[in-house]
């Protein structure tokens, strides 16, 4: 099941040129870019691991693309997203965020139902990938 989080997630994966264009747009807006990765893509897990510090004062998209590729090399089977932060006062939040790398196999999620007091049913989402320990998920097997 294809993970759909962040911008462009219903589109086919972006190519390097397309990513570069998006970075250029972010830089033109004065947003600082950061790279984050995870192997636990639960919708509630919004804070992923940081790949280095956010890149402030970087002028050229190539420099950021280089870091994305370095992160892909280190974590080929993780989800990697690019985050653009708008630091304008009053805004100070994520302006754009999209996935730039995903594992080859995405086992997806299942819906768990729990019988609670009375006839209440509680629902929760369970990621199949998290059944393996962190770091051993998405290793080409599903």
């Amino acid at each position, binding site marked *: 099941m294809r993970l759909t989080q962040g911008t462009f997630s219903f589109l086919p994966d972006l190519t390097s040129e397309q990513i570069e264009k998006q970075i250029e747009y972010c830089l033109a807006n004065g947003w600082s870019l950061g790279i984050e990765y995870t192997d636990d893509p639960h919708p509630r897990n919004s804070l992923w691991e940081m790949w*280095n510090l956010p*890149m402030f*004062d*970087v*002028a*050229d998209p*190539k*420099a950021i693309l*280089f*870091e994305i590729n370095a992160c892909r090399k280190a974590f080929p089977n993780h989800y990697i997203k690019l985050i653009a932060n708008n630091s304008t006062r009053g805004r100070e939040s994520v302006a754009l965020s999209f996935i730039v790398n995903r594992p080859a196999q995405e086992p997806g999620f299942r819906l768990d139902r729990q019988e609670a007091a009375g006839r209440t049913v509680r629902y929760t989402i369970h990621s199949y990938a998290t059944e393996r320990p962190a770091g051993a998920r998405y290793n080409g097997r599903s």
Partner: protein
Amino acid sequence: MESSTGIASPAFVDVDGNASQALLEGTLRELDSELIGLKPVKLRIRQIAALLLVERLREQAGFASGPPSLHMCFTGNPGTGKTTVALRMATILHQLGYVRRGHLIVATRDDLVGQYVGHTAPKTKEVLQKAIGGVLFIDEAYYLHRPENERDYGQEAIEILLQFMENRREDLVVVLAGYKSRMERFFRCNPGLHSRIAHHIEFPDYSLDELMDIAELMVRQRMYAFDERSWQAFREYLQLRVAQPHFANARSVRNAIDRIRLRQASRIVQQGGRIAKEELARIDEADIRQSRVFQGGADAGLAANGRTLPDGIEAKELA
């Protein structure tokens, strides 16, 4: 007609008609008019410009072409315009279409070398990352290397710099600058760095006439006016100053003009009363002749005491 590479294309290319050629001429003319002297420097910039243009034409004609290595090293005596030219290099290379952004990152030892183990590499990489797509200018690069301390982290910064200069040649241009003798000592300790820099440009000292031209430019920029007699006095001043120790070319000229302004200001204040507007701009001959340079220089007393300044330390400008 078939070209030698087998790609069908016209047999002639128009060098003059190239759009970038016109822009380039404009840039180079601007350089000629705003920087006085520096013949070898301008020549080298012209050569680089021509090479980049031909590279582009070659690419269009289907010949093999690769981005040339443009790392540079500027050496020369104090005040010969190394920093000024380096600051312009980013603009020039951007207009030539060699660097994508054309911004300039100025770095010194502080920005590159860390304070503890493992601090240097990320610090250097961060600076290099910021410089990608532009020009990284390292002024007084020899401070990176401290031969007297073998555990100095400067060496680590140099290694990372080298790696970047080699692997990501098309992404950034590194310009090193410094005084000649110390740069040579620096390269002797780091031979790999010397060979990775394609352009070693030496900045010559200015001649007296060039110094006068520089003075004229500075006076005009600051909106002052020298009369005929003050120019003559200033020429004599320079003749004497050049022979005295710690002469720093254009920097000495600038400092001399700044001190002349001081004397002019105090003269005007002492006179007081109502004066013509032009008086505020006019430099009197006396403002120049008061300089200590005419009495044998400020170092006359210093030398008599047997005191000398250690080599390489830039003496404070005294007059």
